[in-house]
């Protein structure tokens, strides 16, 4: 069961990079799809041509982005089997179902109707086309729901039990998997983050047009839509992110403690550290500046709830490792004697802690012979990297508040009809363009690195989840992905910038000129 460490590191790096790359496209798809629906609804209700132009123009940018999202999404689904074969075996019974249902219920909807969105303008009635646009938006949001149900289960594995006959986790309560509170909180947080991304995108590009005095009618209206939708989204992303923090506080105590660099349990209500330099070696945060009460309020929604510190959680993990070793021992004995009822009962009693015993595999293969020192060492493995989590989280939250300010400003200027003349604000809006992506990537970093050393919290350590591949094979594909993806990103951004420079004419019929002469030219 020992696996070379570098395969683990390379597989993690590859999954992390391809997932973060995929998530460059996902939030924009989520947000723009809804914005397209809003714009086209206005067109259908008012019949004013400018709104149709807006829908078509933003639709072109949506399409370029969507193709990249689809392309890089296939990699995500395949990689579980390619690089994480033991994971796929160990939790496929639970984790596979939401992925399959995502395809069946959501992605089919989104992908089947997106073709009609582009090709159906002249083939469908106004209302039918509007329905198509909204079905695309509905599909992309449902898609996020099922993916986050799958991801939520990795953070908080409910409704499943270890089966010694099949050596894997199996579903016992599918409703618990679907209505997992962590998954629900993550879904609303992620989807709102997507709406913020779509709104900042529309806001920034519209600001660029207004600064240049081009496509003013389109830009003004787009900016107003983005400002109102974005303000609502930015408020909910912060509020729902707080909800996410609350559910993590209940279910992933180590993640919260690491994000807050809270080494020791404080008397309730715990204080919130605004600044500090967490030291993983000494278990102390240097130069700490903290605000009393705030963390306790966020994480427990009360003034007397205690937030556990890292050292206390490590001691708790040590107990669970000892309990897990009993389960592990029972499992080994069952392998020789499948029908031993006594060992089955022992496994059932301690089965929830089996994953903790597996942590010892990193230290020695024959885990049942682990010494006290080795158990303590394994317990310390449950601490994720504190300093990067501490800072990534703070930057993300800071950006969240910045988005509220940005959209509030845009909303105010739009309502007093001064958007066009406030050049300073337009510059700010333009330069805000990359920020939602940075916030989203930081958010995923906190969510996934904060879960380490687990791939399934408390159930399966990441280092055991990989495929039995050679490091050379994984390195080959990692280098291949980096080269291929970088090239595509350059092309993608180039085409996006070109479409933005062209403006709405990119979506309008071209008469004569280049198109006709090109059509007649031989291809080779």
């Amino acid at each position, binding site marked *: 069961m020992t696996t070379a460490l570098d395969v683990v590191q390379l597989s993690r790096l590859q999954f992390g990079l391809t997932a973060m790359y995929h998530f460059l496209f996902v939030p924009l798809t989520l947000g723009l799809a809804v914005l397209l629906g809003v714009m086209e609804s206005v067109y259908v209700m008012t019949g004013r041509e400018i709104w149709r132009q807006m829908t078509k123009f933003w639709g072109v940018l949506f399409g370029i982005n969507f193709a990249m999202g689809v392309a890089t999404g296939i990699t995500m689904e395949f990689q579980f089997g390619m690089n994480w074969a033991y994971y796929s*075996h160990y939790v496929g019974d639970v984790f596979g179902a939401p992925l399959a249902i995502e395809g069946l219920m959501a992605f089919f909807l989104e992908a089947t109707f997106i073709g009609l969105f582009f090709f159906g303008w002249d083939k469908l009635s106004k209302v039918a086309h509007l329905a198509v646009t909204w079905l695309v938006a509905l599909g992309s949001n449902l898609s996020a729901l099922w993916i986050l149900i799958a991801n939520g289960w990795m953070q908080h594995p409910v409704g499943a039990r270890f089966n010694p006959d099949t050596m894997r986790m199996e579903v016992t309560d599918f409703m618990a998997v679907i209505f997992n509170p962590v998954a629900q909180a993550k879904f609303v947080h992620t989807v709102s983050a997507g709406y913020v991304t779509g709104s900042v995108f529309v806001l920034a590009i519209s600001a660029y047009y207004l600064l240049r005095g081009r496509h003013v009618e389109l830009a003004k209206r787009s900016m107003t839509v983005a400002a109102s939708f974005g303000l609502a989204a930015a408020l909910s992303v912060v509020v729902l992110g707080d909800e996410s923090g609350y559910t993590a506080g209940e279910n992933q105590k180590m993640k919260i403690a690491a994000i807050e660099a809270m080494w020791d349990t404080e008397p309730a209500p715990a204080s919130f550290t605004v600044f500090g330099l967490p030291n993983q070696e000494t278990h102390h945060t240097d130069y700490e500046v903290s605000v009393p009460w705030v963390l306790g309020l966020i994480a427990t929604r009360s003034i007397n709830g205690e937030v556990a510190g890292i050292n206390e959680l490590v001691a708790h993990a040590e107990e669970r490792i000892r309990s897990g070793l009993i389960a592990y021992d029972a499992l080994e004995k069952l392998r020789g004697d499948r029908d031993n009822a006594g060992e089955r009962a022992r496994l059932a009693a301690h089965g929830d802690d089996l994953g903790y015993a597996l942590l010892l595999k990193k230290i020695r293969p024959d885990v049942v012979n682990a010494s006290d020192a080795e158990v303590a060492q394994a317990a310390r493995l449950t601490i994720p990297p504190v300093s990067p989590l501490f800072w990534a989280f703070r930057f993300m939250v800071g950006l969240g508040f910045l988005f509220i300010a940005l959209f509030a400003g845009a909303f105010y200027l739009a309502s007093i009809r001064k958007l066009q003349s406030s050049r300073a604000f337009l510059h700010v809006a333009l330069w805000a363009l990359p920020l939602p992506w940075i916030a989203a990537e930081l958010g995923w970093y906190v969510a996934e690195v904060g879960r380490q050393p687990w791939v399934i919290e408390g159930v399966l350590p990441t280092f055991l989840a990989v495929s039995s591949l050679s490091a050379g094979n994984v390195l080959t594909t990692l280098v291949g992905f980096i080269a291929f993806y970088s090239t595509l990103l350059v092309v993608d951004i180039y085409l996006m910038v070109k479409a933005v420079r062209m403006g709405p004419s990119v979506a309008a019929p071209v008469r004569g000129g280049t198109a006709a002469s090109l059509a007649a030219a031989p291809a*080779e």
Partner: protein
Amino acid sequence: MPSYETLRLIWWALLGVLLIGLAVMDGFDLGAAILLPFVGKTDAERRVVINTVGPVWEGNQVWLILGGGAIFAAWPPLYAVAFSGFYLAMFLVLCALILRPVGFKFRSKLANPTWRRVWDWALFVGGLVPALIFGVAFGNVLRGVPFRFDDTLRMTYEGTLFGLLNPFALLCGLVSVAMLTMHGGAYLALKAEAPVADRAAFFASRAAMALIVLFAIGGLCVALLIDGYSIVGVIPHDGPSNPLMKHAAANAGAWLANYGNAPSILAAPIVAFGGAALTILFLSARRNGVAIVASALSVAGVVATAGLSVFPFLLPSSLDPNASLTVWDASSSQLTLMIMLIATLVFLPIVLAYTAWVYHVLRGRVTTAYVTENTASTY
């Protein structure tokens, strides 16, 4: 709840439905991409080819995503062993499948002829490589794959990328390429206008002939050269999904045993051959609407033949036949199979209904006049 045995059989059949759905739906746009450089001589003609699949390829590709998801959910050990075992081959498939969406989308964004030529060949590669590798993968399923499990069910694979490219598997790869080229050609014959449609019909007929010959050679190899696998002793049909609890062995001619036991399944290879022959016939009679149906039946027959031959095996192990994955010991739990069945019964009819509506809206041929007049709104 239906018995575990029944659910496993249903999911084996649904796996077949999904693979046939993939081969029929995504198959024609892979085939159209393979034919793109050969049936389109001018940029406008190539745009006609691309725009016949332009509005539907995204939906078609979901059959692949759903296929992957369904194998993950219903047959987790198969997903784990096949995807990690065929690691580098899967990577090549991924690169090809990533080239396709961006190729469709990006090609039309610049008028530069070199840019467009590069994307034409990228689309060709994006069609050819998955078609070839899917066939090669089926060939390796028939031959058995070198993997084994330890007692925690961690799989070790002892083959290489070049081991996958053995002569029999390459033959199966060519069967797959011929089959999808026929299907893509039949689709273009229906959806494009002359001269693109005529060229496509010509290539489709040639590909159908190649399919008939190659599929027959493949059958002879299975009968005479390739060992099949069979279960030794009994395997409980409702036992735990643990592939280490049975015995199996490699036997010459074992893949033909099912046809002896249930001659009615000979219908699958007969449909495969007959569909291809009818495709040629209908295309020469310019009955393009019927030709695509014949071609789809042939595709379904080829996939079904492979699946029925190896039943109850899903993926035999050449290294340790006892570790082979079968319908009876490589599924999800009974509860998961049941939940997935309900989800499929609810959503698959809805998917088929709106897909049919979309094809209805998009009915009719794509013409050069249409693509040149609608340059901004087409690919």
